[in-house]
Structures are given as C-alpha cells and as structure tokens.
C-alpha cells in the first residue's frame, strides 16, 4: 500500500515538476528525495519504484500527446532516430530516463542509510 501511494504521488509530482521546471529537477527533487525519505525495503525496490515513476509519467505524457497529434510528430522523430516506430522511441526514452530516476533514487536510499 505504501509503495503504491509513493508511486502514485511520485507520478503526480513528477508531472508537476516536468511542466514547471527543467527535467533534471525530477532527479534532484523527486527521485533522490523519494529514495531518501521513503525507507523502502531495499535499494533494488527503491530503484524499481523510482524507475516506474519516471517511466510511467513520461510514457503516459508521450502517449496522450501522441494520440492528440495522430502521431504526426512522433513518427517523424522515430524515423529521425532510426527507430522502428514511435512507440519504440517512447519506450526506450522513458526507460532510459527511468533508469536515471532509479539510480538517483538508490543514491537517496543509501544516503538515508548512512544517516
């Protein structure tokens, strides 16, 4: 239950940060903090939660905008980056950003352990 709440709250905050501040604040203000204060059971779990927050926020945002745009933009960008389809592009980018979120989350987790 606690994990689910963290994930849902994280997604909402991630979305807000995303719209208000440059993207790197997601990692400083969100995932690092989540790792630090959430006291999740392990580093791996922290990594997964943070990864999921960033991944979900990004891919949902991508998909919502893409549907409204009939994939006009994303299909061209996928072509530009030699991706098979726009969904590959969304998936890969969201996953990579999720990994960054996961890593900073783990950093927060270990920092909390230290303290």
């Amino acid at each position, binding site marked *: 239950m606690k994990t689910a709440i963290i994930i849902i709250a994280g997604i909402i905050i991630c979305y807000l940060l995303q719209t208000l501040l440059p993207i790197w604040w997601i990692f400083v203000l969100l995932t690092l903090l989540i790792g630090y204060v959430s006291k999740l059971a392990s580093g791996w779990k922290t990594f997964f939660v943070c990864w999921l927050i960033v991944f979900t926020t990004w891919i949902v945002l*991508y998909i919502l905008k893409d549907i409204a745009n009939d994939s*006009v933009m*994303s299909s061209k960008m996928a072509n*530009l980056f030699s991706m098979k389809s726009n969904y590959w592009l969304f998936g890969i980018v969201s996953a990579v950003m999720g990994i960054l979120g996961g890593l*900073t989350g*783990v*950093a927060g987790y270990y920092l909390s*352990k*230290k303290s």
Partner: protein
Amino acid sequence: MRYIKILACIVIPALVIYFLDTGIGSLPPLGKLMDPVNGFMANAETKTAFESNTVDITDPSVKGTIVMDDRLVPHVFADDERSLYYLQGYITAKYRLWQMDIQTRAAAGRLSELFGPKFIEYDIEQRRKGMIFGAENALATIKNNPKLEACIQAYTDGVNAFMQINETDGKSGLKYAAYPIEFKLLNYQPEAWTPLKTALLLKYMASTLTGFDDDAEMTNLKKLLDEADFNALYPDYTTGIDPIIPTEKIYDFDAATTDTLASTTSDVYYKKVLDIFEQQNQKNQVGSNNWAVGGSKTKNGYPILCNDPHLQLNLPSLWFEIQLQLGEMNCYGASLPGAPAIVIGFNDDIAWGVTNAQVDVRDWYTITYQDETKSAYKYGNGWRKTNKRIETVNVRGAAAVIDTVIYTHYGPVVYENVKMVDGVKAKDKAAREGMAMRWLALEKSEEVNTFYLLNRAKNYDDYRHAISYFSCPAQNFIFASHSGDIAITQQGKFPLKQKGQGKFILDGANPADDYQGYIPFEHNPTIKNPSRGFCASANQHPTDSTYPYYYTSFDFEFYRNRVINTTLNKITGATVTDMQNLQQNNFNLAASEALPILLAKLADPCRTDENACKILTELKEWNYENNAVDLAPTYYQIWWDTLYNLMWDEMQSETIAYVKPNTYFTVEAMRNFHDNHPLFDFKLTANKKETFADLVQQSFSSMISICDSLVKADKNVLQWYQHKHTNIMHISQIPAFSKLMVKNGGYRNIVNATSETHGPSWRMIVELSSPVNAFGIYPGGQSGNPGSKYYDNFVDDWAAGKYYPLYLFKDLDAAGKKALFTLTFN
C-alpha cells in the same frame, strides 16, 4: 562500499543529465529535446492550436483580424497599413519562423556560428559575394521611400511580436517549448528580426535566380575549341527560336549606344585558363512558365493568367499563401516568408506572375593591384583606390575567422591570388591579381516596392509603374486584367553592352570593358495585347534578333516555350481545365527531336539481344510523354545522359572549369556535325577514332546494361518517377522531415518541369472574371512545423495534379464562413 554506491548513483546520473541538458558535439541536448512536455512533443500540434482567440500584443495601435481557412491560409483584414504588414509578419513568423531565420542566416554567411567550422568556406563565399553589402544597399534605397520603409518596419515588428523580442537585449521571450523543432534539434535560439533580414532574403532570391554565370567557362572554352565549334555550340542567338516577345513587335525607338568598344570579342579577353571557378556541369535548374491568354481565346471571354515558378522544392515550402485586405486593396497570392506583400498573385482587377529572365547580369573583371597592400588597382592609365570591408565569421566551438574583402568600383573581389595553370606563375604577380564581380544584385534597388504596388494595381498603367522599380533578379512579369488587357515585360536593370561583352572574363584595367550605362526601362522587351491573343514566357530568349541591345544568358530555355506557344496558338475557348492540363503537360519535346536521330544511327539489336530489342521497341513506340509510371522515359534518359557525357568528354575536367553545351545545341550538333567530327572522338581511346554512330551504339549498350543491373535490384525501379526520384527535402536536409520519391511525371525541358530537386513550386491559374476565379497549389503545406498535419498536406495533391480554389474574400463575414479559426488583434 556504500560510499562508492552512493557516489556512483549520483555521479553517473549527474554526468548523463549534464550531457542530456547541454548536448555532445553536434548532438542536441537530448534531455530537453525528449522531454514529453517541452521537447519535441510540444511541437506535436493538437486541435487546441486551431482555437480562435484574441492575441495579446504590446502594440495597441495594431488592429485587425486574421481568418485562418481550412487549408491554414491566413486572410488578413487590417484597419490600417501598419497593422496589415504587422499582421503579415506576425502570422508568417507563427508558421515559418525557423525557415525565415535559417534562410537569412544562410544569405548573410552566418551558418558557422550555428554549425561550426564545416560551414566557414560557405560563409566566406557569401561574404565575398557581397550578400550583406547588397542587402545594406537595398535597405539604404528603401529608406528614401518612407511608405516602403514603414511597411518593412511594420512587418519586422510583427515578426518580433510573435517572438516576444525584448527591445532592450534583443532576446526572444519565446519559451523553449514554443521553439520550432529545428531550433531544438540544431540547438540554438531565435534572434530578433530586422529590416536587413528582409533585404537579405531578397538578395538570397536574387542569388538563386541570377547568382551564376558561364564567364570563366566560356573563356576556357574559347581556348579549347576552334571558332566554328564554339559558335555552333555556344551561340548567343540561333534561328528557329520562339522568343517571349513575338516577332510582330517592332522596336521603333532610338536605342541608347556606347561610344567605346569593349574588348571582349577580340584577343584582349582574359586568355589565361582559370581553375578558380567551380565546375558548372551540373546546370542550374531554375526556370518557370507563365502565360496570359486574352479573352478572345477563352471560353468565358475573360483573360486567364497562369504561372508556375520552378525552384528548388523544399519543406517548409518557399511560398506562404496569404490574403491581404486593407480598404480597397484586396490581394491574394504567394508570399515569401520574410518579406512583406505578395510576390505572385491577383486582386479583383489584375493578376501577375513571374519567370526568371535568365539574362546574364553578373560579370567578372580581372584586377591588377598596384602593390601588396591592395589599396589601389589599375584602371586605364592610372590607379583607383579600393575599399576594404572586414568580415567577421563567428564559428561555433572555434575562433572567429576574419576576412578582408576588397571592394572595387565593379564590386567585391571574390577571388584573390588567381591561380593560372598555363599563365605566368610568378608568386609576386599572382598575389597582385584578383577577380572582381559586378553583379546587379549588389546595386541599389527597391524590389519590394514592385510587389507593394502590384498588390494595389488596378490596370496596365499601374502594372508598368510597379515593375519599373524592379532591378534584380530580372524577371518576365506577366499581366492580365479584368478589363481585358494582357501583357508581358522582361524587367530588370540591364547594362548597355557591346556585342560579346560579359560573355567572357573582362579586363578590369580597361575602361572600355566597364559598363557604359543601362538600357532605359522603356526599352526593356515588352508587349501589350499581341495579335496572337496570348503572352507567354518560359525562360527563353526575350526577343528576336531585331532587338537593338546585346544580351547573353547563362541558360536560355529551348523546349518548354515551344510546347506552350504551340498549344496556346492552337487553343480556342480556353478554360481553367485547359490551363491546368498545359501546366502539367509531360510532352518531352527534346526527346521527340533527339530520339529519331539516335534511332537512325543505331544498329538493330533484335537478332542478337532479345532484351535490347524489347527496350528498343518500347522506345520506338513511345509517345514522348514523361508519365510517372512509364518505362520509356527512363530508357531514353539513361541513354541520353550516357551519350551526352561521351559526346562532350572534352569538356570534362577536374581542374579547368567548362560547361557542356545545352541539350538544344547538343541536338543541333548531332544534326549538323559530320559523323567524323573530332569532338565525337572519345579522347581516352587514343588509338581509335570514334564516330557519332559509335557513340550512339556504345551509349545504347551501356543503357541496356544499366537497366539490366537496376532491374535486378528492384523490378519497379525503371518506372519514370522512381528513376527521376523527386525528393522534396527539408531545408536542413533531414530525410525524416522530407517527402521522398514523389510520384509524378515531367522533367527538365518539359512544361511540367519536375526534376530530382526542382519543379513547379507554386502553380497558379487566375481567370479574371468577376469575382475572380482562381486556383493554386504548391508542394508543401502552410505550416513549417513537421509536427503539424498542415506541414506537407498539399504534396500528394500537387503530385496528382490537383488544384485548390483560392478564396479572395470580400470581407470578414465572407471569410468567416470558411474559417477554421480566427485571431483577433485589438
């Protein structure tokens, strides 16, 4: 261990985030670009982009409404002149901001500051050509015309209003999310628009249309060929042409003359073979068609005017459709993003269009400096002072490059230290020589005034007055009016020349080679209401040989004009549909004249080669139409290209600039040269003498082999449109933002002049009825945003030969009925 993990988990993401935020090398900052809110997905246009609203601008004096129709064409209704051009600037920037930015940076030679050292050479070339100098000259002239200056300033203010330019620091207030995608990909910021940028854009167009010549090539060819061959292959004039001004025209004025005789046709022309110029074997492909059919030849009794300028096809398109309405002025047509007013269009009373004059307005002069300081150069018996202009080319990621460009009274010295391959090579002498360019585009002019006045013109007299301001690039201005007049004028500023002057490199020290004046405007080729009932031009010779002034061209056209004139001579009861069919005429007149000559020389392959026999049969049965899916045009074109290169191998050189004869004079040579003419001999086979028949046979065999190998890769590849391979590339050459291999017919020298990269960039047909009945299309879309469905939505219709009705709305209410959305400024 835990500290290492903490460190790794912070340092690795920090490094990655840093690079994602700043970019690596030529890569953009991928983090910002991929951000689903502010990155490329912010350019994914949704229906909220098409909601009506009141636009918040800082200038309260601007009042008007822009109605966007269902093709995203803005119909601008303004309360006053400043508002009109302000709104034109605003709405053009809204849809074409990056295009406007990059085109003017390219014109000014400022690409290195964006893309680094690989563009230094290009930038230096632009500076040396005097592009900024020419734009400054144009702007200085415009400043003498307060109305025009105010028009350009209003347009500038409108562009800057869209960019939310801060007047203090000149920086754009646009948020990153609102940047056109190209700024994000290329990682730079928009900058304030200025009147100079408008002038630069027009100079860029002048460069596209007149920024080339054959002077060095002709000089070299004169040395390579004997006089008879040179005159046969590169004549200024020939019999059998069908000029723009029909032969009924009598030039009954007293032509201006010069007292001095230029030294160009004798031994005095610059004899040294030059290797400084780029090869121009890849001929310029710019061209256009226009015609106006008088009411006596149309079904409804009203004149019909047609125009299709053939320019490089790009996305975003060169053109931006717009209607401009202010009081009695109500005009519709194609505008250039970056310049106010409409360039090709119509109003309730008249219509006009342009084709390129193709007359040479760029000449080269050898310059001999007095000494190494290059402060003076020889002119007559004395020395003239030079001016020096320091050009600073800023370079991204490297030190700026400083170039001192020497200006003579002819113009800028484009090439210094001319290298001579057979002349004196003394180092000190070479250092004292340069090559100055005299190019009409750099002289004072106010072309914008022509369009400003044409937009308001009501009759023939207004048309003549408007075009009198047009200097360079010289154009064939076609005209038709609701009152029934049709006319055409070749308008530009043309130097008064002796026969042959400017065809070769000129001697800058000889005052006789200098320009002696200009042809008066009234003497430029023009005709009103000719007896044949139509006016037409397709970049051919403007006049017959009775015109009393000398002119030469880098590339007159010989085929499209004859097809157009033949069709229009025959036509009666012409309709808009007839005009559409003519604009899309795929008849290959050049092939119809060349192929019978080739077939007559070819040995019958049918006994020995079944495939060759099949191809030959297809060629014999070909109707000379270059239709999209036909095979015969491909066979012919491969055969022709191979033969052409074999024929003119003498002009193929890596070190010396030559230009090969054009198609027309190549066919003439096939007809008139003896079979054993030395030029037919292939120079690489020293022990063998080839005849024309040998070349025909060899090129045919090569064509068969090429076709065989192509078919092995893909059986459809020989369909004409696949072989022709028309690509409409994004301006920055990004394939993902381009339309590749457009399926249509036509080619160079064909009325439907769609080649690999160039073609009808704007097709317009206007019937001068009341109300005006107009149609048009261009291969692109109104939006410059690749994330918009309006980015390239016209391309398929354009390729299929369709047209859209062009709405010249009388008022706001009428426009409102077709509105997609409305922008209000008050």
